[in-house]
Each structure stands twice: as C-alpha cells, then as structure tokens.
C-alpha cells in the first residue's frame, strides 16, 4: 500500500535580486510515503534547507507544485499555511530555536497557544510531550540551563505536541557531539517506527544509513540520487 504524503512536481525555488538569480531548488520531482525515514544529503548550499522549508510551509515555491497530505501548499493563504505548520508538520533545527527566556514547558506550550488550546490542557499536553522525551525533571529549566541534547529533545517535544504526520529535521545533530547525536538519531528512529514520517537533512550520510530507509541527494538544487534500501 503506497500512500504518498509528500509530492513534489517540478518544484522550483529561486532567489532574485537586481544582479543575479540563485536557484536554490531546481525542478524537483519526488514523493515521500507515509512512515518513511528519508535522509536528505548534499553539500552546503545544495538546497536542503530550502526544500525542508518549502515542505514545512515556511517558504513558498517559485514554480511547480508541492502537495502535503493531499493539499497544494502553493495555493494556500497565509492563514491556511499557519494551520499547515501547526498541524501537518513539525520542524526541528540545528540551532534548536528555543526561546531563551522561556522554560522548556513554556516553549512547548507555545506550539499549543496558537492552536487555541485552553491553558490547563496546554500544560498537560506539553508536560506529557516533555515526559515522553525523558525531560520530566527539566521542564522548569530555561534552554540556557539545558545541554544541547536536552535542548533538541525539548524542540522535538514542541514539534510533536500538535501530533503532526511529518517531522522535518534540518541537521538536528549538527550542534551535538557524536554520542548525543547518536541518541537523538535513535529517538527519531523510534518515533519513525511508531508511524511518524521523518525527513532529516544531514551532512553525514553514513551516520543515518542505519536508521533511514531512503536517501535523497541534492546537488546545486537538483535531485541527483534517490536510493531506497529494501530492508530498513
């Protein structure tokens, strides 16, 4: 049963100014099925982040189409895109992107705030999301008081608290030492086993081989390799 959750068709994203035109993503055609763990690899500047931002609804395509959960993102209004970011996808980043002045719990709650979840329920959901990341004792700590690995787990809790179908991870282990990176990778693999579709950008293709079932390689914005392992 092939159930494609992300479909890109001749997807382009270029940046223009008066002097030059930079193509960040060029004529991408691929689809991702529900429950896949996809590693997106490629050199710096090859367009990996741009692709993830397009799927995440933070950026809009210059041309071509991108469908997530059957809905065309390019046609969405800003209000619908916000809904998409809230419910369809969760995003984590290399630099964690937590609000430094707020506690772990408040950071996770923020994702529920925009959904309009009432305060009491917000607390409960955020706490249980952090609990499932093994951060029960660190909820009241601010990001500055947490280790890199802990911060990234707070970010994962935040990304998943709205129960999205897809997790978009842009080099989530880039700022972590190899042992911690391994742990985060295991965590993502575990989530993937529970049915979460994961797209993970990484420099280091080898380290993700054991968890990812598929590798997309970009070069100058083009898709140059798409390999699936038969047995993940």
């Amino acid at each position: 049963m092939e159930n494609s959750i992300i479909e890109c068709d001749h997807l382009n994203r270029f940046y223009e100014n008066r002097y030059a035109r930079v193509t960040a993503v060029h004529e991408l055609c691929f689809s991702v099925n529900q429950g896949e763990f996809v590693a997106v690899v490629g050199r710096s500047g090859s367009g990996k982040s741009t692709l993830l931002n397009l799927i995440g609804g933070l950026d809009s395509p210059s041309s071509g189409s991108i469908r997530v959960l059957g809905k065309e993102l390019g046609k969405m209004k800003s209000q619908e895109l916000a809904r998409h970011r809230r419910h369809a996808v969760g995003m984590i980043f290399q630099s964690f992107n937590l609000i430094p002045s707020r506690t772990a719990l408040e950071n996770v709650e923020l994702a529920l705030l925009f959904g309009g979840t009432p305060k009491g329920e917000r607390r409960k959901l955020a706490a249980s999301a952090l609990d499932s990341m093994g951060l029960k004792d660190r909820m009241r700590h601010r990001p500055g008081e947490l280790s890199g690995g802990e911060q990234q787990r707070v970010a994962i809790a935040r990304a998943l608290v709205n129960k999205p179908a897809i997790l978009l991870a842009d080099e989530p282990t880039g700022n972590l030492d190899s042992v911690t990176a391994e742990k985060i990778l295991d965590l993502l693999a575990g989530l993937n086993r529970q049915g979460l579709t994961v797209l993970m950008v990484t420099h280091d293709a080898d380290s993700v081989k054991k968890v990812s079932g598929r590798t997309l390689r970009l070069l100058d914005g083009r898709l140059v390799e798409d390999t699936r392992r038969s047995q993940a």
Partner: protein
Amino acid sequence: MRAFDAVALGLDNLRRTRLRTFLTTLGVVIGIGALVSMVSFGTGMQKNVSRVFYENDLFTSLIVTPRKIDPNAMMSGDLSALEQVVAPKEAALDDSALFQFRALPGVMMAYPQIQFPVKIRILGHETENQLGALPARMGEFPPYNELPHGSFFSGDGDSCLLIGQSVLKKMKWILRSGGFKAISLEDSLRGVRSIPPDSLIGQDAEIITSVMDVSSILKNPWQYMASPGRMPTAERSIRFRISGILQKTDDFHGRPFSSELIIPLGMVRHIPRFGFNNVWDLLGNKTSDESYGSIYVRVHGFEDVAPVKQAVESMGFGVFAISDQLQEIRKGFLILDTALGAVGAIALIVAALGIINTMIMSILERTREIGIMKSVGGSEAEIRLIFLTEAGVIGLLGGVFGILLGWIVTRIANAVANFYFAKEGIEHVEMFYMPLWLICGAVAFAIAVSVLAGLYPAARAAAVNPVEALRHE
C-alpha cells in the same frame, strides 16, 4: 489564539523588558497626565461658572423689559432696533401686566425690579448704596434661604432690611466676632473696625432719601419750571430693622439681579422719593409708579423658560433669559477645553512616537522569536494581535497611571492656588474637576493612541520572513 492568552503573552513580554516598558509607559503617563489635568481645569472652570448660575437661579430667571430690544442688532448698528427703543410704547409694563405674568403657567413668581439710590445710616455711620426690593417669598430660594447671619424677612410689609457685607465695608466695618485683634494692621490703619454680626442683627438702620421740596416750589414755581434740572430737595428718613446679613460676594458668587441693600417689596411705596423724571411729570400728574422699568419673572423649572418667554414676548414685551446666554458660554468652554486638550494631545503624540520606537526596537530584537512563533504555527494575524496587545497594555497602564498623575498634579495645583487665594481673601475654589467621562475617556484614548502607534510595528512583526529569521547565525 485566545484573546486572554494574547494579553497574558503581551504582559509577559513586557515584564521581560521591565525598564524599557516602564520608560515607554512613562511617556504615555505624562501625556495622559497632561491631558487630564488640562481638561479637568477646563471642566472645573465650566463647573464653577455653571454652579454660580444654578446657585443664583439664573436658569429659571427671566427679566421682562417694556420693549423688545435686540442687543445684537443694536451692536451691529441696525438703527431700526434703536428706533424700537425710542418709539412710543405699545404695552405698558404695569401692574396689569404683572398680574398677567403671574397667571402664566410655569411662572412661580413675578415682581417688579426696583432699585434706587439711598443713603443708609447705622449707629451713626453713613454710606450711599442702591436699595433693592424683593418679595418675602424669595426667602425660600438661594442665596436668601441660607443667610450667614440673621434671617430673611417673613412678610412683604415688614420694616426689615437685609444688608450686604460690601455695604458694611463701605462703612468701614468688618464682620468679626473676635473683637479688635481680628483685624489686620493694614485695615486698622485705614480705620476699619470690627463688628460682631450678632450686634448688627436687630439694629436700627435709617434709609434716607431725597424728595422734592414742594413747599419751596410753590413759593416760586416759575423759577423751577424754567430750569427743571435744578430743584430744591429735602431729606426724608425712614426706620428699618436689620434682620439679616447677606453672603459675601466674590468673582464667582455675584448677585447680578439684586442689590446689597434689600427691603420687602411692600415697603417700597412707604419710601418717599422722586417718582418722576422732571417737574413736568409732576405737573402732568403722571408718576412712574404705574409702570416699571423691568419685572423679574421666576419660573418653576428650566423647561418653563422657553414657553413663558414666548408668551411674554407675544404680549409685546422684551424678555432676557440668561439661559439663552448659556449656549454661548458652553461654546466658549468647548473652545477652551479643546485648546487645553490640544496641549495634552501633543504630549500624547510624543508618547505615541515613543511607543512606535520601542516596539520597532523590540521587534528587531525578537525577530528570531517571531520566526519561531511562525514555525510552530503562529499566523500573521496572531502575531499582529500579540504586538497590538502589548501596545494596548502599555496604553492601559499609561492611561491608569496618567490619570493618577493628573489627579496628583491637579490636587497640588489646587492647593497652591487656594493658598494664594486665601491670602487675597478669596474663598476656597475647586479649580479642577475630573468627571467620570474624563477618566474613562482618557483611558480609552490612551489605549486607542497606543494601539494606533502599535499598528505599524505589529504589521512589521507579522511580515517577518520566518526563513530569514530562523537561519542560523
């Protein structure tokens, strides 16, 4: 996002930058403080003036004159208005007119306004003043219902006299119960003496008028008919008892319709005086007792003014109602309030610029945070709402504390002003008035201005590109 959450988030964000929030809010506080104290000065003045009107029942008073005079037309040089004055009278303002006025619905009382100069002598001291007459019923109304000393006369035929403190002052008397030590050195050098009010009440007062010395005219009538201006006079005196002392008058508490020396209306005809303008009147046996210079009409309520005025005018008389002037006075105060409000508004504009500046700064600082909010599902509208709420909270705080500041400032200004007023012998005046509408209006205005100032920064925040905001440093 729920409105409550937006407010909570806004408050939280403001708390994070306490000093900056405090300084920005202080701008609004000063702006609103200035606005509120200025406008409350305007409303205070208006209230004081209106109070004088009410206290003296000017709103229910009409003055009827023999002919209709249009003062505006006369001012603008319309000679036909003057002609009306010079032209022979059609309706006489006499007793029959007086009874007609009394019969009109809505009229409480009507009596002729009589005033003529007399000499008064009390305990051997003499001065000259206008003598007025009032019906005994006026004792029911302010200011005559609350005399500081003694009481109003009870019957129109009583030989009682009310005296004002300005008349006493002309006689170099100052009302004091404390004896000589109650007088300042300056006053005592001028020969002012103190007199306890109790010793004046019940005291005899002589009213002295000049009358024509008829016997000397009869001796040589032709001489006086040739030059009617110079006539022989003789003094007549009639005794009254001082029954009460009138309130002190000052700039705020004038008594425009009556004099400082008042006798019962019924006593007027017992006072001998010139009842004519010249000797020809006397010979023609025409005395002006028959018609009056003006008649005071008091109506029951403000709503009676217009119909009574109309009825009296249709009889061919002129009517002057203070309430007509009130519109003009109100207009004047509106201009005053606007001018005062403008000063405060300028302060508030400066505060608004402060808000814009602070918020743009804070948005630049929080660009990444805005990007994060967008990435977790915050919409443009929600982010706009967060920043507008922050601006609104600044406005609310600024408004509330601004009113507090304005109140403190006006209290201090009032105390200082009254300190100097007291030195000048002016009685205590509340110069400022802060009605509920001003308080609510000022808070609403502060919020409105702040939210308006927050519109542009909020739009900028909503337009933040999340990709750029989140690109790692």
